């Protein structure tokens, strides 16, 4: 066994093993649990760093385990998977710190952190998946691992949310399963291949392939919250804030979006997908989702629900970038995977802080909150500007590339969509900023907790500030080496441009 085999396995194990141990820990072993969590997260980051270095220098990481006589579980680190793996492992560390602070003193923490670790394991696994069946396995594992997190609070509302979440995701998983098996019966392989593995298939199967594409996108679109499959996402807001942060920024919606990238680029291949004529409709679905999500967000008073609809809209950018089927747009879409993650996680951390510290859940309660919690709201502001796409925050980069990409492919009308979306983003986010910074508090906070001179606990404050800074940094330094943008361009060069 050499490094190229054990490194991917270790990356998986670094969250799986702590997770399993944490399940078995008694509730009161707080220190041990925290240590395990943080060590796992740090170790994973270190391992991923090593792997990044290796892949950049042409090292090939691959593990295979036979599942069925002709089908294997394949873990492979290519440049694209590393993009997602890195995002996951960095944000996992941050979210873990946040969750430790957020859940302090609440019950069932062993269960929570156990599933939390499983969730990250699943995310990393599907990022590293080297074929569709491996992807499917981790995709379903992700469903199973996030369900308990959504249900964590144990209230009637969370039961309802869990039920709805399951309905959507299990159905999505079933569609994916059928599509994958069908594909397998036609192609005889499921291995992710740059430019896809389907162009050799007999023309008579093309209609079937179109259906398969639709099924795949539908299965993945559930998690990616493409309209009309987004219904579970706003409901899932009842979960604790770190969970929402994780779901929205890293794990679930990104798994869907990442899957769409894989399907379009590594299963069908851009050219073949264009030939089949399936990318055009996908662009339209993505565009509709972008506008629809923003419109719905406008009318939400509940802060987390507003953020949720914003996610619906923002994640569709990734799909859009992929579906436009040009290299520049691809860069925009893929880099948004990272950028949206950083920005959205910041926003959710902040929303969690408001709820945890002041009991604020609604936009209408946020008057003057900027003065009470300046650091939190500063981070929030960075996130908001990113979302709107204002330079120099990361969101601007994504939108720029998307727009350029659309023009490149003669899809100029998409500029209008992007512009409309930005306007809507501004419309639903700026009033929040205005209220927070420029209005007087309208009364006492709903449920204030006292943290002495600090505005809130350290573990709650640091994560949003860090992610906000990161979001700012990747925007400012976009052209430096090893930024997400640079890496995405590296990905696109290596894999998509013939």
């Amino acid at each position: 066994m050499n490094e190229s085999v054990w490194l991917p396995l270790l990356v998986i194990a670094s969250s799986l093993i702590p997770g399993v141990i944490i399940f078995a820990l008694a509730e009161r072993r707080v220190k041990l649990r925290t240590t395990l969590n943080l060590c796992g997260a740090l170790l994973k980051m270190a391992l991923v760093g090593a792997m990044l270095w290796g892949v950049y220098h042409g090292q090939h990481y691959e593990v295979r385990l036979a599942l069925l006589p002709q089908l294997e579980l394949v873990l492979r680190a290519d440049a694209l998977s590393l993009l997602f793996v890195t995002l996951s492992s960095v944000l996992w560390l941050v979210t873990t710190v946040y969750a430790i602070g957020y859940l302090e003193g609440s019950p069932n923490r062993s269960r929570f952190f156990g599933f939390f670790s499983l969730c990250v394991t699943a995310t990393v696994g599907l990022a590293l998946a080297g074929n569709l069946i491996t992807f499917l396995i981790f995709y379903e594992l992700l469903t199973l691992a996030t369900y308990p997190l959504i249900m964590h609070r144990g209230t009637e509302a969370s039961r309802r949310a869990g039920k709805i979440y399951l309905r959507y995701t299990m159905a999505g998983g079933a569609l994916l399963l059928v599509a994958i098996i069908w594909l397998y019966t036609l192609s005889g392989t499921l291995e992710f291949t740059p430019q896809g593995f389907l162009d050799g298939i007999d023309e008579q199967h093309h209609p079937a392939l179109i259906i398969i594409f639709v099924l795949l996108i539908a299965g993945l679109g559930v998690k990616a919250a493409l309209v009309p499959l987004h219904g579970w996402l706003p409901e899932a807001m009842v979960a604790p804030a770190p969970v929402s942060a994780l779901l929205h920024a890293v794990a679930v919606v990104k798994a869907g979006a990442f899957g769409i990238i894989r399907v379009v680029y590594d299963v069908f291949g851009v050219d073949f997908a264009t030939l089949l004529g399936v990318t055009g409709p996908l662009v339209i679905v993505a565009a509709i989702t972008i506008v629809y999500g923003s419109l719905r967000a406008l009318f939400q008073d509940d802060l987390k629900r507003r953020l949720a609809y914003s996610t619906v809209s923002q994640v569709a950018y990734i799909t859009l970038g992929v579906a436009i089927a040009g290299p520049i747009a691809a860069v925009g879409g893929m880099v948004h995977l990272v950028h949206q993650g950083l920005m959205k996680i910041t926003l959710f951390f902040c929303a969690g802080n408001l709820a945890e510290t002041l009991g604020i859940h609604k936009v209408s309660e946020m008057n003057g909150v900027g003065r009470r919690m300046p650091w939190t709201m500063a981070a929030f502001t960075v996130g908001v500007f990113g979302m709107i796409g204002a330079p120099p925050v990361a969101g601007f980069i994504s939108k720029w590339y998307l727009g350029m990409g659309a023009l490149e492919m003669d899809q100029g009308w998409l500029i209008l969509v992007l512009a409309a979306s930005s306007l809507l983003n501004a419309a639903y986010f700026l009033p929040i900023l205005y209220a927070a910074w420029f209005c007087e508090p309208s009364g006492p906070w709903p449920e204030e907790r006292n943290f002495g001179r600090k505005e809130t606990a350290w573990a709650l404050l640091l994560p949003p500030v860090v992610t906000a800074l990161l979001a700012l940094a990747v925007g400012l330094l976009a052209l430096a080496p090893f930024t997400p943008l640079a890496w995405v361009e590296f990905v696109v060069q290596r894999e998509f441009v013939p």
Partner: protein
Amino acid sequence: MVPSSEIPWGALLILLPLAAAILCFVWPKLAVVTGVVTMLLLTLAVGGFAWQLQREGLYQHAVGGWETPLGIGLYGDGLSLLMLAMTVLVGLAITLYARSYFNQKQARVFWPLWLLLLAALNALFLSADIFNLYITLEMVGLAAVALVALKGGRDALNGAMRYLLATLLGSLTYLLGVALLYHSYGTVDLVLLAERIDNSPVVWAALGLMGAGLLLKTALFPLHFWLPAAHASAPAPISALLSALLVKASFYIFLRLWLVLFAPLGGDVALLLGLLGAVAILWGSWQALRQTRLKLLVAYSTVAQIGYLFVAFPLAAAAGAMLWNGVSYLMLSHALAKAAMFLAAGNLLLFGGHDRIAELDRAVQRLPISTAAFALAGVSIMGVPPSGGFIGKWLLLEAAIEQGYWLLAAVMVVGGLLASAYIFKVVGYAFTRSTATPEPQSIPMGMEWAALLLAIASILLGFTAPWVFALLGIGDPFGGGAP
């Protein structure tokens, strides 16, 4: 010292539990020790048998030195081995569980019955003689009935009676078929029958009779009417046993007969079986979803899961050995998962004093190990990866889609979704807050771990398929050569 390769493992698998049962019967004080030791020895014997099969291929033994057709032939191939291994795996867990479950008075009856049942199952899986199979079937049936009724109680007694009538009817119908086949072909040996069989009215009649009898015992829709009552009302380890092993035993015979005797006869029959299987999946899952009692839910889930085994029949002609591999795998993983579920359900029932699903929350939260067992087993039942159930369903779906049986494929997928609905209906309670605090009952560790280990095994099966398929190919039970 006999070299271990010459130890007659096959025969020992039958004789050992028989001798142990006699010992337990005569000296009840030794019952628990004998039971546990025998179970361990059986595990060893299955290991030895597997090793022997792998080295020497097909196992054939003429009992009494009389060659067939006069004598009785023992016959072991990969499929038999799989069934034996399944029996031992589930058996280990049940033994561990039962050690703490029964009181002294019940244990006195349980252990000899359980050992006789093990002997009967092993004998059944190693027999290639259709009359001998009748006797083993009766042994299995009567032992099971006695076990269902072991703890008494109205539901259990009613369930046992219903089961007894069904199983006797099934065996008699089967025997009538045996009579016809014997008269026509002058042998009751499966290998010889396979050589001699032709397409005549007798074969059709025998297929109808033996098939009906066995399907009744397997509880294929619409012959499942007896199953929910019996499986739900029995003591927990017995429920596990019934759902995990017993329906599989009669299915195994049916599959054998189908493979060697009847498959050439009927595409239409196969299609009928497939349709019945499909209806079973939908009906069973739907009923499971409607139940308000946990054990009934699990029992109806068995009705549905049996359906999956039959969906394969219309696909088999074109799909070949790999499909049967999938069916066998589904059988194995269902056995482990369902046993785990029933054992876990038994713990919840024991702890809470009831099994009303809507009031389970407290019990579910106090017994995390049992709940985890239930959930993990549920994953395999749903056919969600990674699990043994996923591998089995993948192969079935692959065949269905490849051959364009869209209806069957759709039913399988819908069945999986319904399964997730009824399983999460239960698992959901693990996360809700509850106010009631009944006096906690303590559940022995062994009983919780028996369930969990089985469930984990059913998940791990998701990674062992190629290895199991290689063993399954010994003796080429499904025809068409090794994969």
